[in-house]
C-alpha cells in the first residue's frame, strides 16, 4: 500500500501541495485527477524522490519510502525522457540494470517488453528515429522493464492513439491483477472512470474527493430525470414535497430529491401532468462529479 500523508510543498509563494493525503491499495488502478496546476505532478515526483516535500511523508508497505523501495517502482514522468541517441534495447537494458537486474536478465526483459509492445524490429534503432507514439511505448517499457512493485505514471495516455490507449489500459489492468498497483494522472475522465478502481480528485494541492468510482458517483441526494409530454414539461414539479431543486433538461427535468422523499408520489404527479416517457434515477458521470467538487458549490448555485 502506498500512502501519501499530509504532503505540503511550496515553490516560493505557490502552494503546490497543501496537506495532501490519500492511499493506494494493493492491486488498485488508481486515477489521479485535478485541474492544471492542481499538484498531481508535484505529488508524483515527491513519491519518486525527484522532488522533496516541505512536510508530510510517503509510505510504502507501512515504511517511509527510501531509495531501495523506489528502485522497485516504475515511473513515467510527465515530460517524457530517454536517451535520444541510444538504441532502444540498450537503454532499456541500462535502466533495468539501474533497477537492480543482472546484465542478462536486463537484456532479456528489454527484448521481451519491446516485443510485447510491437517494437521488436525497432529494438536496435536509436530512440530518436521512432515516431512519438512509439517513443512513448518505449517509455512505458522503461517503466515496466524491471517488473515494478508499483507504477507511477504521469499522464501516460496523453499522446497515444486509440490502439495505444488500449495497449496501455490492458497492461495496467493485467499488472493490477498480479497485485501491482498503478497510480496515474489523467485529464481524460471517461478513461479514468472506465479503468480505475479508485480515484482521487485534487484541487489546489488538497484532496477534494476520493474513493471508488461508484462511491464518487453516488450522491447523498438522489437525482431523478423525468420526461413528460405536457404543455409545460417543467412547471408541474413546483411545490411538490421532497424536491430540493429542479432544472430543465432537454424535453424533461432533472430533479434533486431529499434523501427521504417519496418518489412514488412524484411519479403520480408526473402522470397527472401528462404522458410519462422517462422516469428514472441518474448517476452523475465522473466528469460531472468532478466539476461539482472542483468548481466549488458557490458556482453551482449560480
Amino acid at each position, binding site marked *: 500500500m502506498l500512502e501519501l500523508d499530509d504532503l505540503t510543498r511550496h515553490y516560493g509563494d505557490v502552494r503546490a501541495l497543501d496537506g495532501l493525503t490519500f492511499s493506494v491499495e494493493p492491486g488498485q488502478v488508481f486515477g489521479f485527477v485535478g485541474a492544471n496546476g492542481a499538484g498531481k505532478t508535484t505529488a508524483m515526483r515527491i513519491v519518486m524522490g525527484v522532488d522533496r516535500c516541505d512536510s508530510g511523508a510517503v509510505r510504502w508497505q507501512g515504511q517511509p519510502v527510501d531509495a531501495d523501495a523506489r528502485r522497485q517502482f516504475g515511473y513515467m514522468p510527465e515530460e517524457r525522457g530517454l536517451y535520444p541517441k541510444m538504441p532502444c534495447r540498450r537503454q532499456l537494458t*541500462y535502466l533495468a540494470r*539501474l533497477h537492480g537486474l543482472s546484465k542478462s536478465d536486463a537484456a532479456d526483459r528489454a527484448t521481451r517488453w519491446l516485443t510485447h509492445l510491437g517494437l521488436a524490429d525497432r529494438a536496435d534503432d536509436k530512440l530518436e528515429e521512432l515516431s512519438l507514439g512509439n517513443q512513448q511505448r518505449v517509455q512505458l517499457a522503461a517503466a515496466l522493464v524491471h517488473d515494478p512493485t508499483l507504477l507511477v505514471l504521469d499522464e501516460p495516455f496523453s499522446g497515444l492513439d486509440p490502439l495505444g490507449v488500449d495497449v496501455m489500459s490492458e497492461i495496467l489492468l493485467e499488472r493490477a491483477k498480479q497485485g501491482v498497483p498503478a497510480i496515474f494522472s489523467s485529464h481524460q475522465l471517461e478513461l479514468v472512470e472506465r479503468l480505475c478502481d479508485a480515484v482521487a480528485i485534487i484541487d489546489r494541492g488538497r484532496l477534494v474527493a476520493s474513493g471508488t468510482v461508484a462511491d464518487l458517483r453516488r450522491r447523498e441526494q438522489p437525482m431523478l430525470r423525468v420526461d413528460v409530454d405536457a404543455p409545460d414539461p417543467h412547471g408541474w414539479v413546483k411545490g411538490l414535497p421532497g424536491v430540493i431543486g429542479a432544472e430543465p433538461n432537454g424535453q424533461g427535468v432533472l430533479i434533486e430529491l431529499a434523501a427521504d422523499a417519496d418518489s412514488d408520489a412524484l411519479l403520480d404527479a408526473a402522470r397527472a401532468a401528462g404522458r410519462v416517457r422517462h422516469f428514472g434515477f441518474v448517476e452523475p458521470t465522473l466528469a460531472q462529479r468532478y466539476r461539482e467538487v472542483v468548481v466549488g458549490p458557490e458556482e453551482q448555485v449560480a
Partner: protein
Amino acid sequence: MGLLRIVAARELTERARSKAFLISNVIILAAIGGAAMLPQLLGDPGLHRVGITGHASAELATVVEAQAAGGGGTVEVVELDDAAAAESAVVDGEVDFAIVDGTTVLTDNGLPGSLEPVLQLGSQSLALEQALADAGVPPGERSRLLGGGTLTVEQISTPDTDREAAQDALATAGPVAYLAVVALYGLLIFYGQWVAQGIVEEKQSRVVEVVLSTVSTRQLLAGKVLGIGVLGLGQILLIAAAGTVALLFATEIEPPPGMAPIVAVVLAWYLLGYAIYALLFAVTGAIVARVEDLQSAATPIIIVIVAGFAAAQFALQNPTGTVAVVLGYVPLTAPLIQPIRVAAETATGVEIIIAAALGLATVAGLVPLVARLYAGGVLRTRARVRLRDAWG
C-alpha cells in the same frame, strides 16, 4: 558502488561508440604519424653536404666534420673536380656549401651558425703549418707548436646553471614534453566539455528524472565523471603508445632518457587536471538548460585552460622562471606546467609532492561543492538556474 559502475560503464561505452570519439582518434593518430614522418619527408636537418676541391679543402672539411659532430649532426663530403663544378653544385643545391682549394667557401645562403669562424681558424692553422713546413720545422715539432696551446678554462662563478641545465634537459625532452602538454590541453577541454554536455543532454531530454528515480545525484555525477575520465585515460594511453612507437621506429630522434618519468607525470596530471576541470564543467552543465547555452557558460573555464596552455609555452622557453615555478603549484595550471618542469628536470621531489597534494586537495574540496550545485540544478530542467538557487 554497483550502480555507480553501471552508470560509468554507460558513459564510457556510449561515448566510445560515438563518432566524435572515433574521429578524434583518427586525427590524433594521423597527427602523430604525420609528425613522425615529417623530418623524413623534408630530409634530415642534421645532415650537411660539403663539396670540396683540392687537397687543402679536404683538411678543412675535417674541421667542419669535427664541428658538426659536436652538435650531433653529420657531414657528407663530396669531392668535386674544380671551382666551376663546385659553383654549379652549390647553385643546384647538391651541396650546402663548397670549399675551393682551401681558400674560398662558396655558399648561396650563408654558412650555418658558427661555422664561419671555425673555418677561418682552420684555414689559418693550415696556412701556419704550411709556413712552418716551408721553414723546415719537422712534423713533430710542428704539431707541438700548433696543438700545444695551454689555455685552461676556469669557471669562477655559476651564472644560472639551473636554467642552463634545464634547457639542456629540454633540448632532448622538450619536444616530447611539448607534445604531451598539447595532448593534455586538448584532452582537458575535450573531455571536460563532454561531462558538461552529457549533463545538459540528460536535462534537456528529461531522462534525468527517470535515472534519478533509481540512483542518487551523487552516483550519477560520479559515474559520469569517472566513465568519461576513463575513456580519456584510454585515449591518452593511446597517444603515449603511438608517440613512443613513432619515436622508436619512424624517426631517427632518440627518445629522451627521461621518457618514462615524463609519461608517468603526464598521466598523473591528466587524472588530477581532468578531475578538477570535469568537476568545474559539471557545474556549467547543471545550471544550463540547453546544449546551445553551454558554450557561453563554459567560457570562463576554457579561458583558464587556454591561459594555462599559454603559460606552458612560456615555461618551455624558461622552465626555471618565476612564472613556471608559481603556476606549477597552482592547481588549475599545474597540469600543463608540471610535465614541463619534470621534463626539464628542475622539479624537485618536494615540489612534485606539494603540487600533487594541492591538486588532490582541490579535488577533495570541489567534490562536495559541485555535488551540491549539481543536485540543486540538475532537476530544474526548464530554464537556466542561477548558481545561488542551485546552491540553495
